[in-house]
């Protein structure tokens, strides 16, 4: 396995090269902040490339920042190329955005990193994040340059958290979700962090709301969360950013993963594996009959 310092060095070299040759306007990566916490970093100058880091705290899915770059700056102008550091889960989000015509592959330079899993908390022995424990694909599906050696990790299929809810009665589940959603502040951090949530005007935040309320009573919070999960049906790449950024720890992965599993069962589809395959809910097979 390649050392993290070595990987950091490779990322820096590549970023410096791209920036000095003017191939990209910016490289989006990670840096260590003044208090030792890893945070997203935008390198615009070749000299800034040395601030980039790679370690097991680089949890953010940076592809969500690409939405700020996807529009031309002037008439008939192409948007500037941008370099981005991605992990395996982020790379699937890239495929999703390319498939949905949000990005063009040629505009992005993908510095893909073979990820060994992200950790929470302090110290070397901090536990792997739950999503990383479940991760089967550690080699990114899209890359222009690959940092690290591709490895195959056996998939640890674990649906126990979803199954724990499924054995309850519907009434108990309603009570469970009512307790979870009760904490929601409607801060929309889950939506902001999600690479798949990119509407200019969110249905949940209309200036003139028609039927989706913006209140924080039970029914509107319930609606918001089911809506958020359902809008990502067949698109969610299970990067789990929504849950990670939630300030009140709502277990959003329980909603997302249940849909991910249903999509796999119903349509045998995994989102983000290919830039050509559309989400199963935007298409259908002729004469298909499903159980309703």
């Amino acid at each position, binding site marked *: 396995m390649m050392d993290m310092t070595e990987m950091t060095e490779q990322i820096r070299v590549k970023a410096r090269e791209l920036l000095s040759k003017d191939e990209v306007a910016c490289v989006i990566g990670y840096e260590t902040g003044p208090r030792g916490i890893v945070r997203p970093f935008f390198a615009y100058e070749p000299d800034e490339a040395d601030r980039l880091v790679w370690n097991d705290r680089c949890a953010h899915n940076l592809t969500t920042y690409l939405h700020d770059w996807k529009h031309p700056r002037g008439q008939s102008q192409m948007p500037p190329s941008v370099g981005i550091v991605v992990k395996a889960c982020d790379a699937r989000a890239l495929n999703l955005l390319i498939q949905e015509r949000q990005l063009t592959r040629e505009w992005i330079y993908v510095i893909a990193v073979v990820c060994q899993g992200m950790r929470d908390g302090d110290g070397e022995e901090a536990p792997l994040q739950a999503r990383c424990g479940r991760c089967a694909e550690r080699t990114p599906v899209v890359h222009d340059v690959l940092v690290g050696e591709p490895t195959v990790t056996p998939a640890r299929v674990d649906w126990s958290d979803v199954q724990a*809810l*499924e054995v309850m009665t*519907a*009434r108990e*589940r*309603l*009570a*469970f*979700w*009512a*307790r979870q959603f*009760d904490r929601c502040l409607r801060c929309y951090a889950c939506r902001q962090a999600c690479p798949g949530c990119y509407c200019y005007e969110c249905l949940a935040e209309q200036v003139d709301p028609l*039927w*989706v309320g913006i209140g924080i*009573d*039970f*029914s509107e919070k*319930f*609606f918001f969360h*089911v*809506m958020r*999960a*359902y809008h990502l*049906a*067949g698109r969610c790449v299970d990067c789990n950013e929504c849950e990670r950024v939630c300030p009140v720890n709502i277990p959003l992965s329980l*909603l997302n993963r*249940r*849909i991910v599993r*249903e*999509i796999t069962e*119903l*349509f045998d589809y995994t989102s983000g594996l290919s830039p050509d395959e559309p989400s*199963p*809910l935007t298409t*259908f097979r002729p*004469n*298909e*009959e*499903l*159980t*309703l």
Partner: protein
Amino acid sequence: MDTDFEPRIVGFLCNWCSYAGADMTGTSRIPYPPNIRIIRVPCSGRVNPLLVLKAFLEGADGVLVAGCHPGDCHYADGNFYAQRRYALMHRFLDYVGIEAGRLRVDWVSAAEGARFAEVVGELTHVVRTLGPWSGNRMGQDVTLPS
């Protein structure tokens, strides 16, 4: 079970088949439960699954979504999209606490007046057995469970 309970059921019926089917039920003088409130929509593909959720949160105890039989859609393929959406939504609603039996998605053609009465009858029976859905009064007369 609350014997006074009368289920409130919202029916989203497609203009071209199911709404005409419901009309046929009436003109054929076939009785069916009066619990259903019908909303006419252009196509079952128009019924955003979130409209169903909204209906529940606004006080419905059951929802019916009916459209043309697959292959007979006025817009050629609207109900195929609907079919995929509801195959997923059905399972998902159950997961967030709305029993699967409360939502029925079915195909009723303009000639199937008797079948429409049958579908509404079955759904009303199922919802009556399930009782009122408590989520729509959460935070009002029903307090949050601890």
